[in-house]
């Protein structure tokens, strides 16, 4: 009797020890995964600083690429090209993205709204290289040449899903009572949306725009067959144009040491640009959420 109880007790304590051990091992593994995910960021940023900062010269911003193989020169044309492409993408993408967001938030309750929301999310997952070929067949083949315009269209298509979904979420954050107060004053729905709801959500929508811009600023794949790249300074909308990510891609595969240095320095510039954009967007977003 007492022996049996003893066995049961020791079994129970052994069982408990086993469970405690499993718990400790699993907790340890989970904690390691949690710490482990920040290692890549630290390593990559570390190398960007270590290799990019020493290669950073003022001439990068003021000079265009020299003849291939001759050290020196800069990436002025690529920086200017990236800015122009971004402006083109914003000009073409924003109206459509915000209209889509307005539709989803204000009219998209039913089955059609669900369908559109679904497609927007699916569109966000289409690989950027596929967007690149699509714009190549749609615009470059039809117009007969590579151009900054085509590159802008490709970037706009990538930005569209991001900005429309953020716009939708931000519009939904505007309290329903605000809309009702406006209706009660006899203001029709379209005017309520344009003059009350959109302004109320404007800082949130700005955040979405900045996030979208940060995302497309680093894209090179959709530009390969649309903007093409250019060794010369150009601001022509209908001519091929250089972009910072394209320049990095070209230099990363190039044979010369100066190209590698400039690739690191350009990456440093690009990452700083993108990080400043997305960090400020996130801070804005968090301040809003509170």
């Amino acid at each position: 009797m007492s022996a049996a109880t003893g066995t049961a007790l020791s079994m129970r304590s052994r069982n408990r020890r086993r469970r405690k051990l499993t718990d400790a091992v699993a907790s340890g593994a989970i904690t390691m995964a949690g710490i482990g995910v920040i290692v890549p960021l630290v390593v990559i940023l570390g190398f960007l600083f270590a290799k990019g900062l020493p290669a950073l010269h003022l001439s990068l911003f003021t000079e265009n690429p020299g003849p291939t193989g001759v050290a020196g020169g800069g990436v002025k044309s690529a920086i200017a090209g990236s800015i122009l492409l971004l402006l083109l993408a914003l000009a073409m993408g924003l109206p459509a993205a915000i209209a889509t967001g307005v539709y989803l938030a204000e009219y998209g309750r039913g089955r059609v709204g669900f369908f559109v929301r679904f497609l927007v999310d699916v569109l966000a997952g289409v690989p950027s290289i596929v967007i690149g070929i699509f714009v190549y067949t749609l615009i470059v083949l039809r117009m007969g040449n590579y151009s900054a315009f085509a590159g802008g269209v490709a970037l706009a298509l990538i930005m569209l899903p991001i900005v429309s979904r953020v716009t939708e979420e931000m519009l939904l954050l505007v309290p329903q009572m605000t809309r009702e107060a406006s209706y009660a004053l006899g203001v029709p729905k379209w005017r309520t949306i344009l003059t009350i709801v959109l302004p109320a959500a404007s800082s949130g929508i700005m955040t979405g725009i900045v996030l979208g811009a940060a995302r497309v600023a680093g894209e090179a794949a959709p530009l390969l067959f649309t903007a093409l790249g250019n060794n010369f300074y150009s601001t022509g909308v209908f001519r091929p144009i250089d972009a910072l990510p394209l320049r990095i891609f070209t230099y990363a595969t190039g044979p010369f040491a100066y190209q590698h240095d400039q690739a690191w320095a350009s990456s440093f510039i690009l990452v700083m640009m993108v990080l400043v954009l997305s960090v400020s967007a996130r801070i804005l977003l968090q301040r809003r959420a509170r």
Partner: protein
Amino acid sequence: MQIAESRPQILRRPGFLGRYMQIEYVFRGVVTVVALGVFVLVLAMIYELAHQAWPAISEFKLRFLWSTEWNPPKARFGALPFIAGTLVTSLLALVFGTVIGVGAALFLVEFAPSWVRVPVSSMVELLAAIPSVVYGLWGVFVLGPWIQHTAGTFILKYFGWLPFVHGPALAVGIFAAVLILTIMILPTIVAISRDVIAAVPRSQREGILALGATRWEMIRIAVLPYARSGVLGAAILGLARAIGETLAVALVIGNSTKVPDSIFSPAYTMASVIANQFREVENSTHEAALIYVGLLLLLITLVVNAIARLLVWRVTKGQITTVIE
């Protein structure tokens, strides 16, 4: 009658309401048409790619999917090496990424105090903001040499007996691509699984803790089953990202049109072959074949994304918290 007279002056002006309603219809119509444009866009993508790829589609038909010959000078094309490269790299990255990513998400939700959770979460999200081409540059000059000199020789020495693990370990190849892809899909998997796991009701956890469960038993019995389909959706979204990832992979995969037979083989993925060859096509069939590859890539990612979104939506009830990937 009474009511009509008590209306404000302005509403009694003839045509006023009618005009306002017209604007309402126009406004609604415009935003609806723009929104439905997304549908047209997806259709147009499929149509345009199929149209431009037609010479290759009509010549190679579905044989394209399992033929291994990719011979631009002879204009004979089959996409199996690229399909295999895409499958191998993205599935391996998915396995590593899901194990680490879900672990990290559990850490963030169940273990970490908020002074750890907030900075770690935002650091993971910053990882998503680094451009693909920068990952590629890092892969070429840092990760590749490390694999060649350190990791590769280590793996060959101790795991060389496994199938598909044989050398030589080059700086470029499947393994480098898998590591880069794992890092690149982590933010997606961590962010979405974190939201899905955080959405598991507290009562689930408290109930099983009250029965005397350890923290791991709580996770295994109460949290993970509840969050299962959402975590699966997060993993598939990560998969979709890995499948479509282009430049980082194009820089480190090694550019070989042979079907890979080792994790250190140089290879090509569907996206990277387009990036590397499209600008230097040798003939019109070559271009059509590359667009055919692009069409396949589009169809695959459409299906994979559709499945993932539906899974995540089922858990979060349509409130996608992470469009920002």
